[in-house]
């Protein structure tokens, strides 16, 4: 797994930051936590180069550092976060999500933040300056990003390696309690307390200005800018994109679209609004198993009035909300559940189940496309009934045994179906063993993700190759006389340019879709 991930990460870094940063990051990826000295020695780059690269990587939230005392010296260790690199491929998706949530202008500002990794308000405002944008409008655009929490303030801790942060917090706590080594149970308890504290702290940060822990240095700056009408515009405050929150938005939208495909646009709207009611409280995709319950009456009031909820046989003016909610509950996907009876029924979206459904449907579609109807049926049978042998599969699926067997092995090779052997005798002889087939979403998720990393890296590689092959042409295109129209490309060159553009577009399009698939598999 890590091999394919590393390869993809390096390809992304090369694309976004060039070969030297890629080299430094590569060194960190291969070696793990390292000091500057080690990196310089290994990479055969100058200390200055390495330091600058590290600076860029920290600026873009991919590398964190930790100071640790070794004897009398302080040694700084750098560590790279591979997921922070991999998600860079999904920038277009995040930008789209921001546009939907906060509007076009905000998206432009958000893009600026992505470009800089971290940015302060003056920088963003300067970039947003354009005809017809007043200062207040710019502030609003920025406020929208903060309110949606797709952008959050950077904290000094963000650059410190999480593991080291944990260790030092723990050490400090232990020292405070007298410095005696703690027992395992005490340690777990302590860790839990610390985790709780951190959570609360995070909450504070995310809501913007209210912070429970304030570092000395910042306290001073805070006082200094108190005169400033808006603390968020403080030039000493830097902001970064909050991908966890963006994943929440993207996931919720994916769930709504699932309902839409399953039933109709009205059902999609019902699920969308059911989710949006508590969306602001969801910090990432893993925490909540269900969305917060919303009453049917409350839900009716926030639904888009332009989307009707048609139900057969109901009188005109009848609210179809309850019918839609109950139909969604009745559906096999089980996206919606009823939590209680109050307020005409309290409903929530089963987030955990929905995430599984999203992955399962993706796999089902892979099975369908690759192996056809019979295989898809067999895959679904295994999903429903768990472990079955060949003949059972063939009976349920109503396909010839030969076809069933063929499908099963094909899916097995693709990591979409698995065999469990149950030996009848102690010697595990194959002749006296039952072979049971099953599918497993978690297992296939890993397999499919692995293949997708491979494919995505291939797509990138191919794109680079296509562009390299036309290096001369591209060079010619960027000549000033061509740009200024003094000279022209020959007909065949023009055709080649067009072809290259088409090929690159096709590759980039597939890359984004592949990256989206990886997001569903890895983040939802």
């Amino acid at each position, binding site marked *: 797994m890590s091999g394919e991930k590393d390869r993809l990460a390096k390809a992304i870094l090369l694309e976004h930051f060039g070969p030297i940063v890629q080299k430094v990051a590569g060194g960190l990826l291969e070696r793990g936590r390292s000091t500057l000295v080690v990196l310089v020695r290994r990479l055969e780059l100058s200390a200055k180069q390495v330091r600058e690269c590290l600076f860029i990587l920290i600026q873009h939230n991919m590398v964190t550092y930790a100071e640790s005392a070794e004897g009398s010296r302080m040694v700084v260790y750098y560590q790279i976060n591979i997921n922070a690199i991999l998600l860079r491929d999904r920038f277009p998706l995040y930008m789209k999500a921001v546009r939907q949530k906060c509007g076009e202008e905000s998206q432009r500002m958000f893009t600026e933040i992505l470009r800089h990794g971290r940015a302060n308000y003056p920088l963003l405002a300067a970039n947003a300056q354009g005809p017809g944008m007043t200062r207040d409008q710019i502030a609003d655009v920025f406020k929208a990003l903060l309110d949606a929490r797709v952008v959050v303030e950077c904290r000094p801790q963000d650059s410190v390696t999480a593991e080291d942060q944990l260790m030092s917090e723990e050490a400090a706590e232990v020292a405070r309690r007298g410095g005696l080594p703690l027992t395992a149970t005490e340690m777990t308890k302590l860790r839990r307390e610390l985790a709780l504290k951190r959570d609360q702290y995070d909450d504070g940060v995310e809501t913007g200005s209210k912070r429970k822990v304030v570092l000395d240095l910042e306290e001073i700056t805070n006082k200094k800018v108190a005169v400033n009408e808006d603390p968020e515009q403080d030039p000493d405050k830097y902001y970064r994109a909050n991908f966890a929150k963006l994943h929440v938005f993207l996931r919720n939208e994916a769930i709504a679209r699932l309902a839409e495909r399953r039933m109709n646009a009205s059902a999609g709207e019902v699920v969308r609004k059911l989710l949006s009611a508590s969306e602001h409280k969801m910090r990432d995709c893993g925490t909540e198993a269900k969305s917060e319950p919303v009453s049917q009456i409350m839900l009716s009031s926030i639904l888009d009035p332009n989307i009707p909820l*048609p139900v057969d046989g109901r009188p005109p003016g009848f609210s179809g909300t309850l019918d839609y909610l109950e139909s969604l509950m009745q559906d096999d996907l089980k996206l919606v559940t009823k939590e209680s009876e109050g307020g005409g029924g309290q409903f929530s979206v089963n987030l955990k189940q929905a995430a599984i459904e999203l992955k399962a449907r993706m796999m089902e579609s892979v099975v369908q496309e690759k192996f056809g109807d019979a295989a898809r049926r067999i895959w679904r049978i295994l999903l429903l009934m768990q472990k079955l042998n060949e003949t059972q599969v063939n009976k349920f699926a109503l396909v010839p045994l030969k076809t069933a067997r063929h499908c099963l092995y094909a899916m097995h090779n693709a990591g979409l179906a698995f065999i469990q052997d149950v030996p009848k005798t102690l010697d595990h002889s194959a002749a006296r063993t039952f072979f049971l087939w099953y599918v497993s979403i978690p297992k296939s998720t890993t397999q499919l993700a692995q293949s997708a990393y491979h494919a995505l890296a291939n797509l990138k590689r191919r794109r680079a190759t296509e562009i390299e092959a036309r290096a001369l042409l591209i060079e010619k295109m960027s000549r000033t006389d061509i740009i200024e129209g003094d000279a022209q490309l020959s007909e065949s060159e023009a055709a080649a340019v067009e072809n290259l553009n088409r090929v690159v577009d096709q590759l980039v399009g597939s890359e984004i879709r592949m990256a989206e698939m990886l997001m569903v598999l890895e983040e939802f």
Partner: protein
Amino acid sequence: MSKRASKQAQAALTTEEQTLLAIVKAHPKGVDIEDIKIQLDGWNDNDILTHMNQLSSKQYVDFMTLGKTGKLAFKARSAEEASKTGGMKDEERVIYRLVKEAKNSGIWIKQLKDRSGLHTQLANTVIKNLEKKNIIKWVKPVKTPHKKVYMLFELDPSTELTGGAWYTDNEMDMDFIEQLSTQVYKYIVMKSFPQKVKDAIYPPSHSAYPSASDIHKFISKSGLTTVPLGVPDVQALLDRLYYDGKVTRILKTGARGGDPDRMDTDFDDDEDEDEFDDDFRDGGERVRDLDKGDVWMYKAVKGSALEERNAWTEVPCGRCPVREFCKEGGPVNPSNCRYFKDWLAAS
């Protein structure tokens, strides 16, 4: 002819034998020696056995063992059968008896030979003879088509052997199944969505979705097929559609006391299970519940919930046969691979 033959044969019996035969005939399931003694005053075991042997050799009576006790008992042969086997040689009779015992499940030729105790060659000729006389026949079971299985000529092979309605000449008739399930699906679609308003749904309490027996009726009336189908066959077809993800099933409200709310809570039960696998277990149980009767209504699924395009199978690597060998810098690699070339050229 058989009547005359049986009269002749009957005539050849002694009075004692006739008395004895009458008693045996009165017990179509077989009778043991004790029971016979009760009905025949003054006969001892020996008398009965001697006459019984005579009857047996004249093809009127078969010996058998009774139930678990393994007691010796006797059973009369029908007149027709007596005439059929009457002219047989001993070895033919052995084979005949084994084939007959196997009923419509048939007996595998190898077992037939082994159990008959006859020499292979002899057994082969005997079997051929009986086949020629249209007394026995062979069929190929669907599950093990290489095994010849013998049964009496007049019997219809069991569904176990033929595979049932879905098999034609020992092959699963895929065209037939596909066509029929398409028709059934169309019928369900028709019943699943309101016609009047576009994109409307039926309220959740709607209960006019078809059940397995409704669909069975529909097929029988429609004349879609001349193959006689039972409700279980239709059920298998519906299950297939369900596994296809084309239809879903809804518990008939009547089957659970008609309270839709109750149904909701039933479904809720399994929502809280933490284990991922468990989320699907109840699906499996619902499938097994099926035998309990006509409790499900079938409703077409509007969308399969699949994306129209799939990022993975769309790109060459998703369909690549040499993916395992593909490495940057290796002989198969993304820079020179022809799958990419074709793909990029194609669109």
